[in-house]
């Protein structure tokens, strides 16, 4: 198969498999694992098919443009490094799938398990094959997500959920840091294409941002590869099923960090900063992990810490920035993948067959489960780095390279610490094997239960261990060329010579590792005493710390959010006005300019001054008399009236009319509402708050007033309205420019305006229609009428007068409507006038009488009005004019004489209907409730009276 196709297939296969598995679902375990295995196998085959040419030095890259704007393209490339990792991912993946098939019981959610597993496999392949760093980041985060799902697979277990969340928080968080680093790297390198970046080491390392980039990227790698101090998530990830631990948390995902270090080796490594940080972090992790592993009792926990230690070793090797160290790293990656996965699987077997993972309860299992024992012991030996196994070779190389490096100017530091770490790792490896399989059984029950599993389960680890052995016996034959080419790919140039063999003659490295072995045996021998000795050592429980940190953050942030976000209207409004005050002051100061403009003012007549005084007094009265609500309404209407007069004074008759009629309706509405609201409730605000509010209020008043003053004292800046004046009659067919503006120039505004009213009506209806139900209904029934009414419910004079008035008012309304286009008036005002007339009917004669005489429902009125307005507007389209374009003409009829017909008038009809409908809907509904309440109350009183009389 052609390489490009191979690449795409490689990456897509696992995702397809995952989809398939998820789609099948159900309990078909064989199907699920079968698809997963088939997918992995096919992938492996593809890799093998490509291997020859890739190792041969050919590099293949393919790319599809995705988001050029950010330099993200779906580009894949395969070189020896990618090839090796892809091989590991798929090969071990296949073995893990087989193992997992037998490991998981029937009836477990195998679909979810294998789907997630394949998802992870795809993401992992993406990381190692990505040819674009942004694409790499995408896959990187995907591995965090899928590992989250896999760790949490046994979702009923608390430790699974917590472990999953911790892993996500650490690796996901690290991933975000990595994003920052990578994007910076790309920006500095001028491209996000991996090859380009690898080639631009000089640019990057010269950049002032290099330290930042380096540290950000390293944090990403260290979190993923569980380096100290980010290691703590890994042991808790062991709550995952063993196949997952074997796959993600030893063989592949945790190696992603190491992979990235290797991948970016050419561009990042070589500087002192790099060497110091990476080497020391690796060294510390290696030693620390090995030490802890020695004293753990849970098999998987031991393996987890040993993994941490081994990862530390790899990181350290890459940190050296020495070519041969890179070679050692590459070889050890292979070895570790082999023996560690095998060990995890055998641990799983032991757990599975004996029912416990606690090494203190096990022992002497060699008799009961010989096959497992052989496999595990061999793997442990490889981990301990004993000849003739692969582990030995890579460890020798490691120890040899430590002599080349001097950290903090101390040439002995690294070798010594490395030897100690090696000693410790021999110790825990031997202990693992010995305490598990040899000696005498510590507890009868698990011992009795234990037995070798079916071949299906031990086959996978067996294969891996075989690999570990052969890597030791025939290193050159098996891995020589691969390691050479991979190492070449890492360091970015061909390797001089490579000689992998067990025997390098007597040298320091040999001595060091012999010391290590001897020390390890000692550790095993004295393990009990060491346990006692270290028992007193306080071991900080990372999980507890992490959780208390999270809980602490949670309570803190929550307290902050809750206290700041209490749904307090006063706070919201206060915040708004404060911001306004601030920005206005800032604007005025920064903007500069003058307050008072040149325009000379109009002299104020005494009447005007009196009116002004009245208004101010009324406002003060409103503020200071806030408790007596009815009185306050009177003040409010006074203010409204004065404003209406002002409009008259300032030649705005339409406004005056509107203001008055709106005023009346508003007051009516407030009255009706107040009728049902508490009349004189106690005040809430404390006096300091009042002062605070007062201050803001005065500032606001001052600023807005000032703005008004500044505005009024300036000359207008030739407003567009001159056009309206000029075209009102000729173009709009009306002399009342304001009305023509409303129904013609800016009819679109008016359309919106009436729709607002219509919606208000509908919404109010929707609100009030449910009032009689539930708690509101109950409250209404107990409502007290505290305004003394005249004994008879509808005083006869009032009734008669309103009924006589009605036709008059109606005709007045019609008149208002018709003259609107040329004189003050128009649909809106007319509607209000008529509405008021009807409302008076309600108040006077009650609903029964009025409703009987009111045929059309308000809803219909509103709908009809909007439709009329819309259709009028659309009518223009027929005449090839734009929406809302108008036409008018003059006609003469006998008797009436000349008169005008304008489509604008039709539009005004729509306005009339909507406004009338909305106002009626709102107020009628409201007074309905008031009356219902009154009736209920009345009935109650009568009842009580009856009670009393009896």
């Amino acid at each position: 198969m052609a390489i490009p196709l191979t690449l795409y297939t490689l990456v897509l296969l696992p995702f397809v498999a995952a989809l398939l598995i998820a789609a099948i679902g159900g309990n078909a375990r064989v199907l699920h694992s079968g698809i997963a295995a088939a997918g992995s196998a096919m992938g492996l085959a593809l890799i093998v098919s490509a291997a020859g040419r890739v190792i041969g030095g050919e590099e293949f890259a393919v790319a599809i443009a995705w988001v050029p704007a950010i330099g993200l393209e779906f580009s894949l490339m395969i070189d020896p490094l990618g090839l090796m990792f892809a091989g590991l991912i798929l090969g071990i993946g296949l073995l893990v799938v087989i193992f997992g098939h037998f490991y998981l019981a029937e009836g477990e959610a195998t679909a979810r398990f294998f789907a997630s597993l394949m998802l992870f496999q795809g993401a992992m392949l993406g990381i190692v094959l990505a040819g674009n760093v942004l694409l790499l980041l995408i896959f990187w985060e995907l591995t965090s997500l899928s590992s989250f799902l896999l760790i949490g697979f046994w979702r009923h277990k608390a430790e699974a959920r917590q472990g999953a969340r911790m892993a996500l928080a650490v690796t996901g968080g690290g991933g975000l840091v990595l994003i920052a680093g990578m994007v910076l790297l790309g920006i500095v390198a001028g491209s996000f294409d991996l090859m380009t970046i690898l080639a631009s080491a000089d640019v990057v390392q010269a950049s002032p941002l290099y330290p930042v980039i380096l540290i950000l990227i390293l944090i990403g790698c260290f979190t993923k590869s569980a380096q100290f101090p980010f290691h703590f998530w890994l042991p808790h990830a062991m709550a995952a099923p063993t196949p997952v631990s074997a796959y993600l948390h030893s063989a592949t995902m945790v190696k992603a960090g190491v992979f990235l270090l290797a991948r970016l080796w050419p561009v990042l490594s070589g500087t002192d900063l790099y060497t110091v940080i990476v080497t020391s972090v690796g060294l510390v992790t290696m030693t620390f992990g090995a030490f802890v592993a020695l004293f753990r009792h849970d098999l998987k926990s031991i393996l987890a810490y040993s993994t941490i230690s081994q990862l530390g070793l790899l990181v350290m090797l890459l940190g050296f920035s020495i070519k041969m160290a890179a070679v050692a790293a590459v070889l050890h990656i292979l070895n570790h993948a082999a023996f560690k996965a095998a060990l995890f699987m055998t641990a799983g077997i032991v757990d599975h067959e004996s029912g416990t993972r606690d090494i203190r309860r096990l022992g002497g299992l060699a008799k009961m489960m010989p096959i497992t024992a052989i496999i595990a012991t061999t793997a442990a030996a490889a981990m301990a780095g004993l000849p003739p196994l692969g582990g030995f070779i890579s460890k020798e190389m490691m120890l040899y390279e430590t002599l080349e490096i001097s950290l903090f100017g101390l040439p002995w530091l690294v070798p010594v610490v490395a030897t100690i770490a090696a000693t410790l790792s021999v110790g825990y490896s031997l202990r693992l094997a010995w305490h598990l399989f040899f000696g005498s059984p510590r507890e009868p029950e698990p011992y009795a239960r234990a037995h070798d599993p079916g071949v299906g389960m031990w086959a996978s680890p067996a294969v891996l261990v075989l690999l570990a052995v052969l890597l030791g016996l025939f290193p050159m034959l098996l891995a020589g060329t691969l390691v050479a080419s991979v190492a070449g790919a890492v360091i970015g140039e061909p390797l001089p010579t490579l000689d992998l063999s067990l025997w390098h003659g007597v040298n320091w490295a040999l001595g060091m590792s012999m010391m290590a072995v001897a020390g390890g045996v000692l550790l095993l021998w004295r393990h009990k005493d060491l346990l006692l000795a270290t028992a007193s050592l306080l071991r900080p429980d990372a999980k507890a710390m992490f959780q208390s940190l999270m809980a602490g953050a949670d309570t803190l942030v929550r307290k902050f959010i809750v206290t700041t976000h209490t749904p307090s209207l006063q706070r919201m409004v206060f915040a708004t006005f404060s911001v306004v005050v601030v920005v206005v002051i800032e604007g005025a100061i920064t903007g500069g300019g003058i307050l008072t403009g040149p325009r000379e003012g109009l002299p104020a007549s005494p009447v005007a001054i009196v009116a002004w005084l009245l208004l101010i007094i009324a406002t003060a009265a409103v503020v200071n008399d806030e408790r007596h609500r009815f009185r306050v309404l009177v003040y409010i209407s006074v203010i409204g009236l004065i404003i209406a007069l002002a409009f008259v004074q300032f030649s705005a008759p339409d406004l005056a009319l509107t203001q008055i009629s709106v005023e009346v309706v508003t007051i009516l509405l407030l009255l009706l509402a107040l009728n049902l609201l508490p009349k004189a409730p106690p005040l809430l605000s404390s006096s300091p708050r009042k002062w605070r509010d007062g201050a803001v209020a005065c500032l606001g008043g001052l600023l807005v007033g000032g703005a008004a003053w500044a505005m009024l004292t300036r000359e207008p800046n030739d407003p567009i309205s001159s056009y309206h004046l000029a075209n009102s009659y000729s173009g709009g067919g009306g002399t009342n420019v304001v009305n023509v503006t409303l129904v013609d120039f800016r009819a679109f505004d008016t359309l919106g305006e009436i729709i607002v009213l219509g919606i208000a009506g509908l919404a109010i209806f929707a609100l009030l229609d449910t009032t009689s139900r539930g708690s509101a209904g109950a409250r209404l029934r107990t409502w007290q009428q505290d305004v003394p009414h005249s004994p008879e419910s509808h005083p006869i004079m009032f009734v008669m007068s309103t009924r006589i008035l009605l036709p008059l008012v109606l005709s007045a309304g019609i008149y208002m409507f018709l003259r609107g286009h040329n004189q003050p008036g128009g649909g809106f005002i007319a509607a209000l006038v008529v509405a008021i007339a009807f409302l008076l009917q309600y108040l006077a004669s009650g609903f029964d009488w009025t409703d009987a005489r009111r045929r059309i429902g308000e809803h219909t009125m509103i709908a009809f009005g909007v439709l009329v307005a819309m259709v009028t507007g659309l009518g223009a389209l027929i005449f090839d004019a734009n929406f809302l374009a108008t036409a008018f003409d003059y006609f003469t009829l006998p008797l009436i004489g000349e008169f005008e017909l304008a489509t604008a008038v039709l539009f005004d009809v729509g306005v009339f209907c909507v406004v009338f409908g909305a106002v009626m809907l709102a107020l009628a509904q409201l007074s309905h409730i008031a009356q219902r309440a009154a009736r209920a109350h009345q009935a109650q009183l009568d009842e009580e009276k009856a009670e009393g009389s009896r």
Partner: protein
Amino acid sequence: MTLEFLVASAIGVLVAGGIYMALRGRTFQVVLGLTLFSYAVNLFLFASGRLTVNRPPIWSKTVTEYADPLPQALVLTAIVITFGMTAFAVVLALRSFLETGSDQVDGDIVSSDDQQPDGNGAG
């Protein structure tokens, strides 16, 4: 004293009163505050056309000087919209009072904390 000053100061006073009332603790007061505020705003918007006396924008062949009609049209629209909004606010205030039995504007202090929280720590 000029009319401009009267209008500007009136606007200022109304705004101050409006803001103060809008910051009170009960819905009815707040609505009144908004009413005052909207009076001021309408005047302000109207004032953006400057003040003119005895020149209503009713077109006729003889007149040449008019008050600026556009702000008047805008204010008309604004008045109507404000009316709709106020009406809705009033009814809503009433409705919420009837439902909850309180006409205070500040919701309960502990928001959605009623069910036992399960923090980020455990779980």
